[in-house]
């Protein structure tokens, strides 16, 4: 049985998918790759937008893409440090 991902790990996975797709992905494939239910994905998506970790951009054909913000890149960069800190202090 696989371990349930915690909130920080899910966020990391979503951000990593975006980065690995050349920092540009449509919402539907992102939902598919994230392995989340539509409802949970919608919750995380709103949270990431609200926290400024991802941005929505629209191209000339009026298609919506998702990209990482600077804060999103920073999150990926610091993820290991953050989880290490949380584990170390049992937070």
């Amino acid at each position, binding site marked *: 049985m696989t371990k349930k991902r915690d909130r920080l790990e899910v966020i990391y996975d979503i951000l990593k998918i975006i980065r690995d797709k050349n920092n540009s992905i449509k919402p539907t494939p992102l939902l598919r790759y994230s392995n989340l239910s539509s409802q949970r994905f919608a919750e995380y998506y709103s949270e990431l937008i609200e926290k400024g970790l991802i941005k929505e951009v629209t191209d000339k054909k009026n298609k919506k893409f998702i990209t990482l913000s600077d804060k999103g890149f920073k999150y990926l960069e610091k993820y290991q*440090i953050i989880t290490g800190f949380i584990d170390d202090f049992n*937070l």
Partner: protein
Amino acid sequence: MPGHGFAMMQTNLWVDAIYTLIIILASGIIYTKTREIYALTGHKGIKYFRNVFLFFAISYLAHFFLLSPRIWRTVEFANLIFPTILFITVYASTAAVLYLLYSAMWKKTHKGFFAKSWLLHVIALVVAILTILFSVPLLFVILQAIIFIYAAIMSYLNHRKAKTKKGFSKVYYIYILLFVFWILNTFATALPPFFLQIKLFVYAISIILFIIILTRVVKRLSVKSNDKKKG
């Protein structure tokens, strides 16, 4: 020998001032060092952890002014200033102690008391008001001890009930010592000047505890990340 007594008081004041400054500096560094990881994650545990040191810094500063009579007795409105500083000391220290418990327990107990962090401020407010109303400055120490002991027992029982293979974390022992030395510090600062050695001992251990936590924070946050997921 009035000259000797005055010199003792001066020494005590300097010791208190340097001690307070070190604790505030250590707490301030912990608070600012963890700002970025909190801004990135909004993680509740990190928020509670940071608030422990924010409120400890406030309470240690207020406590210094509270027990430095020559500072507030010279002020005309000492009757108003003393209870205000006492209120801040009690409120901030109770909040710090409760944040300490929240940071250690919020993950294990999602429901009830630990699901509502605003309750913590209500409790701190009640403890502060009771201390002022009954004019017994040490009442807050007793109330804080009751809260802390109750929560520590609950935490231990939860830990046993969970039957986890993990031992009780070393951090919990540091937290317990941090609280014990906050209580001892409250008494030590109130000791007459000739008990300077006892005071120095309590202060030294308190500083060591804060430095241990500070070092651990700095060490953890200075690790070079290679952005590879664990496991």
